[in-house]
Protein backbone atom coordinates (compact mmCIF):
# COMPACT_ATOMS: atom_id res chain seq x y z
CA UNK A 1 0.00 0.00 0.00
CA UNK A 2 1.13 3.51 -0.74
CA UNK A 3 0.41 6.45 1.50
CA UNK A 4 -3.22 7.60 1.25
CA UNK A 5 -3.52 11.35 0.73
CA UNK A 6 -6.19 14.00 0.37
CA UNK A 7 -4.02 16.02 -2.01
CA UNK A 8 -2.72 15.16 -5.48
CA UNK A 9 0.93 14.13 -5.54
CA UNK A 10 1.41 11.50 -8.24
CA UNK A 11 -0.62 10.07 -11.13
CA UNK A 12 -2.54 6.85 -10.59
CA UNK A 13 -0.11 4.79 -12.69
CA UNK A 14 2.80 5.96 -10.50
CA UNK A 15 0.89 5.05 -7.35
CA UNK A 16 0.18 1.65 -8.89
CA UNK A 17 3.86 1.11 -9.72
CA UNK A 18 4.77 2.03 -6.14
CA UNK A 19 2.13 -0.33 -4.72
CA UNK A 20 3.25 -3.18 -6.99
CA UNK A 21 6.84 -2.80 -5.82
CA UNK A 22 5.81 -2.72 -2.17
CA UNK A 23 3.63 -5.83 -2.55
CA UNK A 24 6.38 -7.81 -4.30
CA UNK A 25 8.88 -6.87 -1.59
CA UNK A 26 6.36 -7.66 1.17
CA UNK A 27 5.88 -11.14 -0.34
CA UNK A 28 9.65 -11.74 -0.31
CA UNK A 29 9.71 -11.97 -4.10
CA UNK A 30 11.62 -10.32 -6.95
CA UNK A 31 10.06 -8.62 -9.96
CA UNK A 32 11.24 -11.49 -12.14
CA UNK A 33 9.15 -13.91 -10.08
CA UNK A 34 5.89 -12.21 -11.09
CA UNK A 35 4.18 -13.83 -14.09
CA UNK A 36 0.72 -12.27 -13.86
CA UNK A 37 -0.54 -8.68 -13.61
CA UNK A 38 -4.23 -7.79 -13.31
CA UNK A 39 -5.04 -4.09 -13.39
CA UNK A 40 -8.07 -2.70 -11.58
CA UNK A 41 -8.64 0.58 -13.40
CA UNK A 42 -10.92 3.07 -11.66
CA UNK A 43 -14.12 3.67 -13.64
CA UNK A 44 -13.33 7.39 -13.22
CA UNK A 45 -9.97 7.05 -14.95
CA UNK A 46 -9.17 6.93 -18.65
CA UNK A 47 -7.56 3.78 -20.00
CA UNK A 48 -4.50 5.92 -20.82
CA UNK A 49 -4.18 6.67 -17.10
CA UNK A 50 -3.96 2.97 -16.30
CA UNK A 51 -2.82 1.21 -19.46
CA UNK A 52 -1.63 -2.27 -20.31
CA UNK A 53 1.84 -0.69 -20.54
CA UNK A 54 1.82 -0.78 -16.76
CA UNK A 55 3.83 -3.98 -17.22
CA UNK A 56 6.70 -1.82 -18.47
CA UNK A 57 6.18 0.99 -15.95
CA UNK A 58 6.37 -1.62 -13.18
CA UNK A 59 9.37 -3.41 -14.67
CA UNK A 60 7.53 -6.68 -15.26
CA UNK A 61 8.66 -8.46 -18.43
CA UNK A 62 7.93 -12.08 -17.61
CA UNK A 63 4.14 -12.11 -17.70
CA UNK A 64 1.97 -14.98 -18.87
CA UNK A 65 -1.21 -13.23 -17.67
CA UNK A 66 -2.09 -9.56 -18.24
CA UNK A 67 -5.45 -7.82 -18.31
CA UNK A 68 -7.35 -4.70 -17.34
CA UNK A 69 -10.34 -5.87 -15.32
CA UNK A 70 -13.21 -3.41 -15.56
CA UNK A 71 -16.20 -4.37 -13.46
CA UNK A 72 -16.51 -1.07 -11.59
CA UNK A 73 -16.36 -1.47 -7.81
CA UNK A 74 -16.33 -5.25 -8.00
CA UNK A 75 -13.09 -5.20 -10.02
CA UNK A 76 -10.56 -5.69 -7.21
CA UNK A 77 -12.28 -8.82 -5.92
CA UNK A 78 -12.65 -9.95 -9.52
CA UNK A 79 -8.90 -9.55 -10.15
CA UNK A 80 -8.25 -11.87 -7.20
CA UNK A 81 -10.83 -14.34 -8.53
CA UNK A 82 -9.22 -14.31 -11.98
CA UNK A 83 -5.75 -14.67 -10.48
CA UNK A 84 -6.94 -17.66 -8.45
CA UNK A 85 -8.43 -19.34 -11.53
CA UNK A 86 -5.28 -18.65 -13.56
CA UNK A 87 -3.11 -20.19 -10.84
CA UNK A 88 -5.35 -23.23 -10.55
CA UNK A 89 -5.22 -23.83 -14.32
CA UNK A 90 -1.47 -23.29 -14.48
CA UNK A 91 -1.59 -20.14 -16.61
CA UNK A 92 0.33 -18.20 -13.99
CA UNK A 93 1.93 -18.83 -10.59
CA UNK A 94 2.40 -15.42 -8.93
CA UNK A 95 -0.06 -12.73 -9.90
CA UNK A 96 -0.09 -9.11 -8.76
CA UNK A 97 -3.52 -7.45 -8.55
CA UNK A 98 -3.35 -3.67 -8.28
CA UNK A 99 -5.67 -0.70 -7.86
CA UNK A 100 -4.77 2.98 -7.74
CA UNK A 101 -6.83 6.09 -8.16
CA UNK A 102 -6.57 9.86 -7.80
CA UNK A 103 -10.13 11.18 -7.50
CA UNK A 104 -8.79 14.24 -5.67
CA UNK A 105 -7.07 16.37 -8.29
CA UNK A 106 -5.83 19.78 -7.18
CA UNK A 107 -8.76 22.14 -6.65
CA UNK A 108 -11.59 19.64 -7.01
CA UNK A 109 -13.71 18.51 -4.11
CA UNK A 110 -14.81 14.92 -3.73
CA UNK A 111 -18.33 16.00 -4.62
CA UNK A 112 -17.13 17.51 -7.89
CA UNK A 113 -14.98 14.50 -8.72
CA UNK A 114 -17.99 12.20 -8.60
CA UNK A 115 -20.66 14.67 -9.85
CA UNK A 116 -21.64 12.80 -12.98
CA UNK A 117 -25.15 11.87 -14.06
CA UNK A 118 -26.04 8.54 -12.50
CA UNK A 119 -27.32 6.02 -15.04
CA UNK A 120 -30.42 4.28 -13.70
CA UNK A 121 -32.71 4.35 -16.73
CA UNK A 122 -30.51 2.68 -19.33
CA UNK A 123 -30.76 4.05 -22.87
CA UNK A 124 -33.47 6.52 -21.88
CA UNK A 125 -30.92 8.99 -20.52
CA UNK A 126 -33.55 11.03 -18.70
CA UNK A 127 -31.42 11.35 -15.53
CA UNK A 128 -29.56 14.32 -17.01
CA UNK A 129 -32.71 16.36 -17.61
CA UNK A 130 -33.91 15.56 -14.09
CA UNK A 131 -30.71 16.69 -12.37
CA UNK A 132 -30.08 13.18 -11.08
CA UNK A 133 -26.38 13.66 -10.47
CA UNK A 134 -23.76 11.83 -8.40
CA UNK A 135 -23.76 8.22 -7.21
CA UNK A 136 -25.13 9.52 -3.90
CA UNK A 137 -28.51 9.89 -5.61
CA UNK A 138 -28.74 6.26 -6.69
CA UNK A 139 -27.95 5.10 -3.16
CA UNK A 140 -30.38 7.61 -1.69
CA UNK A 141 -33.03 6.09 -3.96
CA UNK A 142 -32.13 2.62 -2.69
CA UNK A 143 -32.09 3.83 0.92
CA UNK A 144 -35.53 5.44 0.65
CA UNK A 145 -36.97 2.27 -0.86
CA UNK A 146 -35.32 0.10 1.82
CA UNK A 147 -36.52 2.28 4.70
CA UNK A 148 -40.08 2.43 3.30
CA UNK A 149 -40.38 -1.29 2.56
CA UNK A 150 -39.16 -2.24 6.03
CA UNK A 151 -40.72 0.73 7.86
CA UNK A 152 -37.36 1.85 9.29
CA UNK A 153 -35.74 5.24 9.91
CA UNK A 154 -32.43 6.85 8.97
CA UNK A 155 -31.15 5.79 12.40
CA UNK A 156 -30.39 2.45 10.69
CA UNK A 157 -28.10 4.28 8.28
CA UNK A 158 -26.58 6.34 11.07
CA UNK A 159 -25.82 3.20 13.04
CA UNK A 160 -23.65 1.99 10.14
CA UNK A 161 -21.74 5.28 10.12
CA UNK A 162 -21.24 5.04 13.89
CA UNK A 163 -20.08 1.41 13.70
CA UNK A 164 -17.56 2.25 10.99
CA UNK A 165 -16.30 5.23 12.99
CA UNK A 166 -15.77 3.12 16.08
CA UNK A 167 -13.53 0.80 14.07
CA UNK A 168 -11.73 3.77 12.48
CA UNK A 169 -10.88 5.10 15.95
CA UNK A 170 -8.74 1.95 16.31
CA UNK A 171 -7.07 2.22 12.88
CA UNK A 172 -4.04 4.45 12.27
CA UNK A 173 -4.68 4.25 8.51
CA UNK A 174 -8.23 5.58 8.81
CA UNK A 175 -8.91 9.18 7.83
CA UNK A 176 -11.95 10.03 10.00
CA UNK A 177 -11.28 9.01 13.61
CA UNK A 178 -13.08 11.58 15.73
CA UNK A 179 -15.76 9.80 17.79
CA UNK A 180 -19.23 9.96 16.23
CA UNK A 181 -22.54 9.46 18.01
CA UNK A 182 -25.97 8.71 16.57
CA UNK A 183 -27.14 12.06 17.96
CA UNK A 184 -24.43 13.87 15.99
CA UNK A 185 -25.45 11.92 12.90
CA UNK A 186 -29.10 12.94 13.33
CA UNK A 187 -28.06 16.61 13.64
CA UNK A 188 -26.14 16.56 10.34
CA UNK A 189 -28.02 18.03 7.36
CA UNK A 190 -29.26 15.95 4.46
CA UNK A 191 -27.19 16.05 1.28
CA UNK A 192 -29.46 14.01 -0.96
CA UNK A 193 -32.23 12.87 1.36
CA UNK A 194 -32.31 10.39 2.99
CA UNK A 195 -28.48 10.42 2.86
CA UNK A 196 -26.15 12.77 4.69
CA UNK A 197 -22.46 13.39 4.09
CA UNK A 198 -21.77 10.90 6.90
CA UNK A 199 -23.43 8.17 4.79
CA UNK A 200 -20.90 8.67 1.97
CA UNK A 201 -17.43 7.32 1.33
CA UNK A 202 -14.36 9.42 2.16
CA UNK A 203 -12.16 9.46 -0.97
CA UNK A 204 -8.37 9.49 -0.96
CA UNK A 205 -5.63 9.18 -3.54
CA UNK A 206 -3.59 6.02 -3.22
CA UNK A 207 -2.60 2.60 -4.51
CA UNK A 208 -2.97 -0.94 -3.15
CA UNK A 209 -1.57 -4.19 -4.55
CA UNK A 210 -1.68 -7.82 -3.45
CA UNK A 211 0.18 -10.92 -4.63
CA UNK A 212 -1.90 -14.04 -5.29
CA UNK A 213 -0.12 -17.39 -5.45
CA UNK A 214 -0.65 -21.09 -4.76
CA UNK A 215 -0.86 -22.50 -1.24
CA UNK A 216 2.58 -24.15 -1.28
CA UNK A 217 4.34 -21.06 -2.68
CA UNK A 218 2.54 -18.85 -0.17
CA UNK A 219 3.99 -20.85 2.71
CA UNK A 220 7.50 -19.88 1.55
CA UNK A 221 6.71 -16.17 1.79
CA UNK A 222 7.78 -14.22 4.90
CA UNK A 223 4.19 -13.11 5.63
CA UNK A 224 1.43 -15.37 6.95
CA UNK A 225 -0.86 -16.27 4.04
CA UNK A 226 -4.49 -15.21 3.71
CA UNK A 227 -6.29 -18.21 2.24
CA UNK A 228 -9.18 -18.19 -0.25
CA UNK A 229 -11.85 -20.89 0.19
CA UNK A 230 -14.64 -19.74 -2.07
CA UNK A 231 -15.63 -17.07 -4.53
CA UNK A 232 -18.70 -16.00 -6.46
CA UNK A 233 -20.28 -13.28 -8.51
CA UNK A 234 -23.84 -12.02 -8.99
CA UNK A 235 -25.19 -9.60 -11.58
CA UNK A 236 -28.96 -9.38 -11.23
CA UNK A 237 -29.64 -6.65 -13.79
CA UNK A 238 -31.44 -3.35 -13.50
CA UNK A 239 -35.03 -4.16 -14.38
CA UNK A 240 -37.22 -1.10 -13.76
CA UNK A 241 -40.63 -2.71 -13.56
CA UNK A 242 -43.04 -4.30 -11.09
CA UNK A 243 -41.82 -7.61 -9.66
CA UNK A 244 -38.19 -6.45 -9.57
CA UNK A 245 -36.51 -4.16 -7.04
CA UNK A 246 -32.95 -3.74 -8.33
CA UNK A 247 -32.29 -1.02 -5.73
CA UNK A 248 -32.58 -3.45 -2.82
CA UNK A 249 -32.63 -6.97 -4.30
CA UNK A 250 -29.16 -7.16 -5.79
CA UNK A 251 -26.77 -9.77 -7.15
CA UNK A 252 -25.12 -9.98 -3.72
CA UNK A 253 -27.43 -12.86 -2.83
CA UNK A 254 -26.24 -14.92 -5.81
CA UNK A 255 -22.58 -14.02 -5.25
CA UNK A 256 -22.83 -15.14 -1.64
CA UNK A 257 -24.65 -18.38 -2.34
CA UNK A 258 -22.05 -19.42 -4.91
CA UNK A 259 -19.12 -18.46 -2.68
CA UNK A 260 -20.55 -20.21 0.39
CA UNK A 261 -21.21 -23.37 -1.61
CA UNK A 262 -17.68 -23.38 -3.03
CA UNK A 263 -16.25 -22.97 0.47
CA UNK A 264 -18.58 -25.63 1.88
CA UNK A 265 -19.96 -23.29 4.52
CA UNK A 266 -23.11 -21.33 5.21
CA UNK A 267 -23.66 -17.69 6.15
CA UNK A 268 -23.81 -18.60 9.84
CA UNK A 269 -20.13 -19.66 9.66
CA UNK A 270 -18.96 -16.14 8.76
CA UNK A 271 -16.92 -14.54 11.58
CA UNK A 272 -16.38 -11.08 10.07
CA UNK A 273 -17.08 -9.10 6.91
CA UNK A 274 -15.18 -6.60 4.81
CA UNK A 275 -17.87 -5.08 2.61
CA UNK A 276 -17.50 -2.56 -0.14
CA UNK A 277 -19.51 0.17 1.60
CA UNK A 278 -19.34 3.36 -0.44
CA UNK A 279 -22.66 4.34 1.16
CA UNK A 280 -24.13 3.27 4.49
CA UNK A 281 -27.24 1.72 2.93
CA UNK A 282 -25.18 -0.89 1.12
CA UNK A 283 -23.96 -2.40 4.41
CA UNK A 284 -27.56 -2.96 5.56
CA UNK A 285 -28.55 -4.55 2.25
CA UNK A 286 -25.40 -6.67 2.09
CA UNK A 287 -25.87 -7.97 5.64
CA UNK A 288 -29.30 -9.21 4.56
CA UNK A 289 -28.57 -10.51 1.06
CA UNK A 290 -25.40 -12.31 2.13
CA UNK A 291 -27.62 -14.13 4.63
CA UNK A 292 -26.18 -12.60 7.81
CA UNK A 293 -29.36 -10.82 8.97
CA UNK A 294 -33.04 -11.39 8.23
CA UNK A 295 -34.56 -8.98 5.73
CA UNK A 296 -35.32 -5.63 7.29
CA UNK A 297 -33.43 -6.56 10.47
CA UNK A 298 -29.90 -5.37 9.65
CA UNK A 299 -30.52 -1.93 11.14
CA UNK A 300 -31.54 -3.37 14.49
CA UNK A 301 -28.45 -5.59 14.45
CA UNK A 302 -26.10 -2.70 13.68
CA UNK A 303 -27.81 -0.42 16.22
CA UNK A 304 -27.33 -3.12 18.88
CA UNK A 305 -23.56 -3.02 18.26
CA UNK A 306 -23.42 -6.36 16.44
CA UNK A 307 -21.01 -5.05 13.79
CA UNK A 308 -18.97 -2.77 16.07
CA UNK A 309 -15.79 -3.57 18.04
CA UNK A 310 -16.73 -6.33 20.47
CA UNK A 311 -19.83 -7.28 18.48
CA UNK A 312 -20.74 -10.79 17.33
CA UNK A 313 -20.04 -10.03 13.64
CA UNK A 314 -17.30 -7.43 13.11
CA UNK A 315 -17.95 -5.54 9.85
CA UNK A 316 -15.55 -3.20 8.04
CA UNK A 317 -13.02 -3.38 10.80
CA UNK A 318 -10.79 -0.62 9.44
CA UNK A 319 -13.57 1.94 9.28
CA UNK A 320 -14.56 0.95 5.75
CA UNK A 321 -15.17 3.49 3.04
CA UNK A 322 -17.12 5.85 5.30
CA UNK A 323 -14.46 6.51 7.94
CA UNK A 324 -11.38 4.66 6.74
CA UNK A 325 -10.38 5.39 3.16
CA UNK A 326 -12.24 5.04 -0.13
CA UNK A 327 -10.06 3.20 -2.60
CA UNK A 328 -12.96 1.31 -4.14
CA UNK A 329 -12.65 -2.50 -4.03
CA UNK A 330 -9.11 -2.32 -2.69
CA UNK A 331 -10.31 -1.00 0.68
CA UNK A 332 -12.08 -4.18 1.86
CA UNK A 333 -9.33 -6.36 0.35
CA UNK A 334 -6.57 -4.45 2.16
CA UNK A 335 -8.33 -4.66 5.52
CA UNK A 336 -9.04 -8.37 5.01
CA UNK A 337 -5.36 -9.10 4.39
CA UNK A 338 -4.22 -7.13 7.45
CA UNK A 339 -6.77 -8.92 9.65
CA UNK A 340 -6.03 -12.39 8.28
CA UNK A 341 -2.30 -11.86 8.92
CA UNK A 342 -3.03 -10.77 12.49
CA UNK A 343 -1.47 -7.40 11.69
CA UNK A 344 -4.46 -5.18 12.47
CA UNK A 345 -3.16 -3.88 15.81
CA UNK A 346 -5.78 -2.47 18.19
CA UNK A 347 -8.61 -3.48 15.88
CA UNK A 348 -7.48 -7.10 15.42
CA UNK A 349 -10.38 -9.57 15.40
CA UNK A 350 -9.58 -12.75 17.30
CA UNK A 351 -11.56 -15.45 15.50
CA UNK A 352 -11.24 -15.35 11.73
CA UNK A 353 -11.97 -18.83 10.42
CA UNK A 354 -14.18 -17.41 7.68
CA UNK A 355 -14.20 -13.83 6.49
CA UNK A 356 -16.53 -12.51 3.79
CA UNK A 357 -14.83 -9.98 1.50
CA UNK A 358 -16.93 -8.27 -1.15
CA UNK A 359 -16.99 -5.70 -3.90
CA UNK A 360 -19.82 -4.19 -5.88
CA UNK A 361 -20.04 -1.67 -8.67
CA UNK A 362 -22.39 0.79 -10.28
CA UNK A 363 -25.51 1.33 -8.24
CA UNK A 364 -25.09 -2.12 -6.63
CA UNK A 365 -25.48 -4.01 -9.92
CA UNK A 366 -22.18 -5.89 -10.08
CA UNK A 367 -21.14 -8.10 -7.17
CA UNK A 368 -18.12 -10.25 -6.40
CA UNK A 369 -17.33 -12.08 -3.15
CA UNK A 370 -14.50 -14.04 -1.56
CA UNK A 371 -14.56 -16.34 1.45
CA UNK A 372 -11.16 -16.12 3.14
CA UNK A 373 -9.52 -17.38 6.30
CA UNK A 374 -6.34 -17.91 8.30
CA UNK A 375 -6.03 -21.69 8.04
CA UNK A 376 -4.84 -23.68 5.03
CA UNK A 377 -7.94 -25.89 5.06
CA UNK A 378 -11.37 -25.37 6.52
Amino acid at each position, binding site marked *: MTEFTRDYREPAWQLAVNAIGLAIKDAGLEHADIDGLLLNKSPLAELTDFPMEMEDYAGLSNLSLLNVVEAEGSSMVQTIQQATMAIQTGMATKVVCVFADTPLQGGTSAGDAFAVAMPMM*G*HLGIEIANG*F*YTPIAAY*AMAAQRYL*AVHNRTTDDLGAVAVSNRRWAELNDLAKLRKPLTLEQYRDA*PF*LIEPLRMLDCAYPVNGGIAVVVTGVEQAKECPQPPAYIYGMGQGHAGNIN*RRGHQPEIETGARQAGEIAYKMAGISASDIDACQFYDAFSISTLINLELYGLCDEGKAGEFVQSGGTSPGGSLPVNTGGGHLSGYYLQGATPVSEAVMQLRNQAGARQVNKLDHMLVTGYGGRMQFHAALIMGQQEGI
Partner: protein
Amino acid sequence: MKFAEENVVWPEIKKVAEPFYEGMQQHKVMIQQCTRCSTNLPPAQIVCDHCGSNDLKWVEVDGSGEIYSYVVYHRSFHPAFNDQVPYIVALIELKEGPRLMGHIKLKEGQTYKVGSAVVASFQKMDKNNELLYFQLEGGEN
Protein backbone atom coordinates in the same frame (compact mmCIF):
# COMPACT_ATOMS: atom_id res chain seq x y z
CA MET B 1 -24.98 16.24 -22.47
CA LYS B 2 -25.85 19.48 -24.23
CA PHE B 3 -27.28 22.79 -23.14
CA ALA B 4 -30.48 23.39 -25.09
CA GLU B 5 -30.92 26.80 -23.46
CA GLU B 6 -29.44 28.49 -20.47
CA ASN B 7 -30.36 26.53 -17.36
CA VAL B 8 -31.76 23.63 -19.36
CA VAL B 9 -29.79 20.41 -19.56
CA TRP B 10 -30.91 17.88 -22.10
CA PRO B 11 -29.40 14.50 -22.95
CA GLU B 12 -28.15 13.38 -26.32
CA ILE B 13 -31.11 11.21 -27.31
CA LYS B 14 -30.30 7.70 -28.48
CA LYS B 15 -32.25 6.47 -31.48
CA VAL B 16 -33.83 3.69 -29.44
CA ALA B 17 -35.28 6.29 -27.03
CA GLU B 18 -36.61 8.76 -29.64
CA PRO B 19 -40.30 7.68 -29.42
CA PHE B 20 -40.29 8.48 -25.69
CA TYR B 21 -38.98 12.02 -26.25
CA GLU B 22 -41.26 12.60 -29.23
CA GLY B 23 -44.15 11.46 -27.03
CA MET B 24 -43.22 13.97 -24.32
CA GLN B 25 -43.33 16.78 -26.90
CA GLN B 26 -46.98 15.85 -27.47
CA HIS B 27 -47.69 15.35 -23.75
CA LYS B 28 -47.86 11.58 -24.13
CA VAL B 29 -46.22 9.01 -21.85
CA MET B 30 -44.81 6.21 -23.98
CA ILE B 31 -43.67 2.80 -22.74
CA GLN B 32 -42.73 -0.37 -24.58
CA GLN B 33 -44.53 -3.68 -24.80
CA CYS B 34 -43.24 -7.07 -25.91
CA THR B 35 -45.30 -8.30 -28.87
CA ARG B 36 -44.55 -11.94 -27.96
CA CYS B 37 -45.30 -12.14 -24.23
CA SER B 38 -47.12 -8.79 -23.74
CA THR B 39 -44.81 -7.77 -20.86
CA ASN B 40 -44.87 -4.00 -20.37
CA LEU B 41 -41.30 -2.66 -20.40
CA PRO B 42 -39.76 0.63 -19.29
CA PRO B 43 -38.25 2.60 -22.15
CA ALA B 44 -35.86 2.19 -23.85
CA GLN B 45 -35.24 -1.54 -24.07
CA ILE B 46 -33.74 -3.54 -26.93
CA VAL B 47 -34.74 -7.02 -25.76
CA CYS B 48 -37.60 -8.15 -23.50
CA ASP B 49 -36.02 -9.25 -20.22
CA HIS B 50 -38.92 -11.67 -19.65
CA CYS B 51 -38.93 -13.75 -22.87
CA GLY B 52 -35.90 -12.57 -24.86
CA SER B 53 -37.87 -11.29 -27.83
CA ASN B 54 -36.56 -8.21 -29.62
CA ASP B 55 -39.93 -7.48 -31.22
CA LEU B 56 -41.08 -4.59 -29.03
CA LYS B 57 -43.68 -1.93 -29.76
CA TRP B 58 -44.36 1.50 -28.27
CA VAL B 59 -47.67 2.08 -26.51
CA GLU B 60 -49.16 5.19 -24.90
CA VAL B 61 -50.22 5.11 -21.23
CA ASP B 62 -51.85 7.81 -19.11
CA GLY B 63 -48.85 8.22 -16.80
CA SER B 64 -50.60 7.48 -13.53
CA GLY B 65 -48.95 5.33 -10.90
CA GLU B 66 -47.40 5.47 -7.46
CA ILE B 67 -44.15 6.59 -5.89
CA TYR B 68 -41.75 3.62 -5.81
CA SER B 69 -38.91 5.62 -4.24
CA TYR B 70 -37.64 9.19 -4.23
CA VAL B 71 -34.74 11.41 -3.22
CA VAL B 72 -34.61 15.08 -2.23
CA TYR B 73 -31.67 17.16 -3.44
CA HIS B 74 -30.72 19.61 -0.71
CA ARG B 75 -27.65 20.68 -2.66
CA SER B 76 -27.18 21.26 -6.38
CA PHE B 77 -24.51 19.30 -8.22
CA HIS B 78 -25.05 21.13 -11.53
CA PRO B 79 -25.49 24.87 -12.18
CA ALA B 80 -28.74 24.29 -14.11
CA PHE B 81 -30.37 23.07 -10.90
CA ASN B 82 -29.06 25.70 -8.48
CA ASP B 83 -32.40 27.53 -8.39
CA GLN B 84 -34.43 24.37 -7.91
CA VAL B 85 -33.09 22.98 -4.61
CA PRO B 86 -34.66 21.42 -2.74
CA TYR B 87 -36.11 19.29 -5.54
CA ILE B 88 -37.57 15.78 -5.53
CA VAL B 89 -36.58 13.14 -8.08
CA ALA B 90 -38.68 9.98 -7.94
CA LEU B 91 -39.03 6.61 -9.55
CA ILE B 92 -42.71 6.21 -10.37
CA GLU B 93 -44.18 2.74 -10.85
CA LEU B 94 -46.82 3.22 -13.54
CA LYS B 95 -49.99 1.21 -13.06
CA GLU B 96 -48.95 -0.81 -16.14
CA GLY B 97 -45.78 -1.93 -14.30
CA PRO B 98 -42.77 -0.08 -15.76
CA ARG B 99 -41.00 2.61 -13.72
CA LEU B 100 -40.08 6.08 -14.96
CA MET B 101 -37.97 8.83 -13.43
CA GLY B 102 -39.33 12.33 -12.93
CA HIS B 103 -39.53 15.25 -10.53
CA ILE B 104 -42.44 15.41 -8.11
CA LYS B 105 -43.80 18.95 -7.82
CA LEU B 106 -45.84 19.62 -4.70
CA LYS B 107 -48.48 22.18 -3.96
CA GLU B 108 -48.49 24.05 -0.68
CA GLY B 109 -49.14 21.74 2.24
CA GLN B 110 -49.05 18.48 0.29
CA THR B 111 -47.36 15.49 1.90
CA TYR B 112 -46.19 12.36 0.13
CA LYS B 113 -44.47 9.06 0.76
CA VAL B 114 -43.50 5.85 -0.99
CA GLY B 115 -46.80 4.47 -2.32
CA SER B 116 -48.51 7.85 -2.84
CA ALA B 117 -50.59 8.02 -6.05
CA VAL B 118 -49.32 10.39 -8.74
CA VAL B 119 -50.30 11.56 -12.21
CA ALA B 120 -48.16 12.72 -15.13
CA SER B 121 -47.70 16.32 -16.13
CA PHE B 122 -45.35 18.15 -18.50
CA GLN B 123 -43.10 21.15 -18.20
CA LYS B 124 -41.90 23.21 -21.16
CA MET B 125 -38.09 23.27 -21.10
CA ASP B 126 -37.39 25.10 -24.37
CA LYS B 127 -39.09 25.49 -27.72
CA ASN B 128 -38.46 21.89 -28.70
CA ASN B 129 -38.66 19.99 -25.48
CA GLU B 130 -41.15 19.11 -22.77
CA LEU B 131 -40.16 17.16 -19.68
CA LEU B 132 -42.35 14.64 -17.86
CA TYR B 133 -42.89 15.24 -14.15
CA PHE B 134 -45.42 14.04 -11.62
CA GLN B 135 -47.97 15.58 -9.27
CA LEU B 136 -49.86 14.00 -6.43
CA GLU B 137 -53.19 12.58 -7.57
CA GLY B 138 -56.06 14.95 -6.84
CA GLY B 139 -53.75 17.94 -6.61
CA GLU B 140 -53.17 18.53 -10.32
CA ASN B 141 -54.09 21.73 -12.08
